[in-house]
């Protein structure tokens, strides 16, 4: 049994836990809406489009987070304006995504010698976070959570039934844009932890698992947060005692849990039937 107090012995680990915790809470919460709205691909695309912004910022000697945020928000607003029901929306998003990645490649080549920067963006750099980053993440995290709480009911309404919500006076297009803007900020935060390529593991996977256990929105949201926290904390802890990257452990924990839950589903279903039959008798 390794000495667990060692985990918090180094500043970089403390910062990683702090930032990881904030990001996991935000990602777990917003993930429910991403899954409910069928916007998983849009979330994935946001991070990739953000990659072009981040590498572009590096070329211009700016903080990559600024470029990342600018591009994810721009892309988020554009995707939100496309609306939730537009047929072929994913094709349009995919086309922009591919082009954005192409731009990212160009920017990396323009900035020779900084491949580590690109690597960190793609796969996360949570062990390289300083106090300033933690504070920035905290502020962004609080903003995204406050925004989510503020739009909670109409967002839920328009995610479930856009037509009825619109008839009841909910500004569905405005909400769609607003939600994607909030998601853009959440994605930008999460990129620090798992990187552009692995964003799915923190935003989509915990929520996708949670909705299989509860169809009560607040319960599903809390469960998603708990899972995102568990993956992040465990991933950090395991990585500390191993030579392998944190992102690998976080994504693997998320993936393994999802697979286990899906495989166990027929068994859970059978147990449910049996107990239902027992109460019926």
């Amino acid at each position: 049994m390794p000495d667990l107090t060692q985990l918090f012995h180094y500043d970089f680990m403390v910062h990683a836990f702090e930032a990881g915790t904030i990001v996991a809470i935000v990602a777990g919460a917003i993930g429910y809406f991403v899954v409910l709205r069928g916007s998983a691909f849009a979330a994935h695309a946001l991070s990739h489009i953000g990659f072009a912004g981040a590498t572009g910022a590096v070329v211009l000697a700016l903080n990559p987070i600024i470029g990342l945020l600018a591009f994810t928000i721009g892309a988020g607003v554009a995707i939100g304006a496309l609306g939730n029901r537009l047929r072929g929306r994913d094709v349009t998003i995919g086309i922009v995504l591919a082009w954005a990645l192409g731009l990212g490649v160009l920017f990396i080549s323009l900035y020779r010698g900084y491949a580590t920067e690109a690597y960190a963006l793609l796969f996360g750099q949570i062990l390289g976070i300083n106090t300033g980053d933690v504070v920035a993440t905290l502020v962004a995290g609080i903003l995204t959570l406050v925004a989510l709480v503020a739009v909670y009911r109409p967002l839920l309404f328009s995610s479930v039934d856009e037509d009825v919500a619109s008839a009841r006076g909910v500004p569905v297009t405005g909400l769609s844009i607003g939600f994607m803007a909030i998601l853009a900020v959440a994605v930008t935060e999460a990129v620090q932890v798992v990187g552009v390529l692995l964003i799915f593991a923190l935003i989509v996977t915990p929520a996708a698992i949670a909705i299989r256990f509860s169809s009560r929105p607040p319960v599903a949201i809390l469960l998603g947060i708990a899972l995102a926290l568990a993956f992040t904390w465990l991933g950090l802890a395991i990585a500390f005692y191993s030579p392998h990257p944190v992102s690998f452990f976080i994504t693997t924990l998320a993936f393994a849990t999802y697979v286990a839950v899906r495989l166990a589903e027929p068994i859970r279903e059978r147990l449910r039937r049996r107990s239902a039959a027992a109460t019926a008798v």
Partner: protein
Amino acid sequence: MKESAAAIVARGVAAGYGSRSIWADATFSIPAGSFTAILGPNGAGKSTLIRLILGQIPAVAGQLEVLGEPPRRGNPKIGYIPQASIFDPELSIRGRDFVGLGIDGHRWGVRLADREQVSAAVDASIAAVGAGDYADRQLGRLSGGEQQRLLLAQALVGQPTLLLMDEPLSHLDVRNQATIVQLISQIARRRRLTVLLIAHDVNPLLPHIDQVLYIAQGKLAMGRPVDIITSEALSEIYSASVEVLKDRLGRVFVVGLEEEVSHPHA
């Protein structure tokens, strides 16, 4: 109280999108508390009428009055069930939560106050449509008829006086169609609700409706079913050779207002 208890009054209303006209010169009055079937071929502009009443699109010409005022979006006195409301099986929300959105889903923030009142109103609405057995299950996993009942509970939970339904029967089998229509009719009578229901097939509605609003070829015509759904009346209104056929079971079929014969979902 107004003397003429009309829920909806249209005077020379025209509907269209941009330069494209859909129908025009619609003048009719729908009495409060009545049950109206909106019929007509696909693409004739039946849903357009609903969207006008909901205030989602403006009338191109004429005047429309809904519950004594011009149409406006978000009118809480209107309950609405949109077309093709079949939920994704993966949609992770309980029927009960969905019904609750009909009360305060349009409000910002989270529900903090009035939790008990909301919960009581939701229970009452679920009981009224007989959906108590499955209201706690995931909405998307329910059958078409069960979903339709919960949609109805959601539309009714805010105590509207006008209920608009766009093809609520199209996903149901014949038996479920009859039960749902019966349910709507009972609730409407008890609560003195005005109901407008778009249907593809008038037959399951015939025992319950007070009038039909026929929309075809750019024109609207309203009247009692026995007066409107006849070969003579429809042929005259639409200056075309329209035939109303009756089969052995007394079901009616309208032929001649669209390219192909209209097939009821039987």
